[in-house]
């Protein structure tokens, strides 16, 4: 009974600390608040399951992010949003630079899932590399290269298709 109460408390604590972060990542990557809610619920369910399975494990942000990364990956594959050819042509040719920067989300969501996740938690939320390494199960140097490549891709889409 005490263990169950402890688990509930820990779960509430995780929700309080990282709930906003996970929800923001879910909604931003899936580009939909309803899908984001579903993904958030799935992630929270998995976290609760992990808490029950390993009650004495010290859960930190990296582990929560790791679960979110896995669950979001599945959700993204199921609900992947692809631009129509017309939308892609419009984004690539007809828009001015300012409009393109205003339409940054459209370019951002053309990136692969891992790149989006990395840019969001690194550049938007400013999480340190060690935690990202643990969450994405990728070495730090690879993450830096990946980030640089993602920047280069976005730059090509926005500036070099003028």
């Amino acid at each position, binding site marked *: 009974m005490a263990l169950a109460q402890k688990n509930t408390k820990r779960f509430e604590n995780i*929700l309080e600390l990282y*709930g*906003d972060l996970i*929800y*923001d990542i879910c*909604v*931003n990557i899936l580009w939909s*608040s*309803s899908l*984001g*809610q*579903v993904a*958030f*619920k799935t992630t*929270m*369910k998995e976290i*609760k399951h992990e808490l029950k399975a390993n009650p004495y494990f010290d859960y930190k942000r990296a582990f929560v992010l790791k679960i979110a990364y896995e669950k979001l990956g599945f959700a993204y594959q199921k609900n992947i949003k692809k631009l129509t050819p017309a939308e892609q042509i419009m984004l690539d040719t007809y828009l001015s630079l300012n409009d393109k*920067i205003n339409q*940054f989300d459209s370019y*951002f969501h053309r990136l692969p899932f891992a790149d989006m996740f990395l*840019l*969001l938690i690194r*550049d*938007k939320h*400013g999480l340190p590399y060690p935690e990202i390494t643990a969450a994405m199960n990728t070495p730090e140097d690879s993450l*830096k*290269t990946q*980030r*640089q490549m993602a*920047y*280069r891709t*976005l*730059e090509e889409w*926005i*500036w070099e298709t003028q």
Partner: protein
Amino acid sequence: MDLGNTMSINCFEWNNQLSNLLDGTLKGENKIKNDEHLKKCATCQKHYDHALVIFSTLSQQKREILPAQLRKEPLTHLLHSIPQEFFSHKGKTYWQKTPWYIRAGTKGILFFVVAFFLITLTPKLKSLYEREKNQNRGVLDPFSLKLEEESQENTQKNDNEASQQQSLPLTRGNLTTAVQKEPDEAFLGELDENDSETNNIQKENIAQEIWRFHIKTDSPHEMRLKILKLFTELKISSQTHGTGGIEAPGGIQFDLQVTQELAEKIKNHLTMFFPKNTDTASDTNIQNTFTWYKNKVKRAQANGIARVVIWLSQV
């Protein structure tokens, strides 16, 4: 593009440091080298400016806040809290409003009724289908049409002969009783009385019957000539399939399809060839010389057509 020297870095090295440069983690000598490269290389400076724009856009993006409802119940997303009436236009139907046990009972009864009808109707439907199929075959089979035409001609030309043959003995039983009876009745008397299905078929005049004659003889070839003569007398066309007879190990077999009337005529003639001998001493031998019987055919056959099989076995 700066190809680089020993003191400064080239574009490739600068690109590798871009992530650290954006994070502001470059310090000391590395930072000085990067700054020097940016001053010299316009391309890298442009890339850096673009990267800064992207970085600022990303970092300034609006952060989504977890809704209060979801924070309160994180394992149930908001859509669950919306009442079901919101999604349906008309609300629950009458059927949905009825209690589950009534719905379950009704569904069960309906299921059994449907199953019962299916079980009972399937054989009837099957028999109807087969009957229709047989009728279609009878109409479309050119061989049977030809035989029917021949039989009509025979009946018109041989009215007198037919009337005489009706008075001939029909069975191998008592001659007098056989003469008194009608031909069909005499024949049916020989059939198995329990075989009501066969009788029904006979009454409905659906020609699904086979006549088998077994003649034991010393010389099947001589008997074959007699049989062929009989066919000629009965005006069975030599073109009819099976009239020639087929030599098989142990004898000769005729297998032909003729009209029912002709089949009866063949039977009458053969009975005349082999009359029953009343002599008790040789009774057994004579009875074994010629035997015949009629049976129903399982295979579908055209209306009014009977199959006649005459087997001349070598003694």
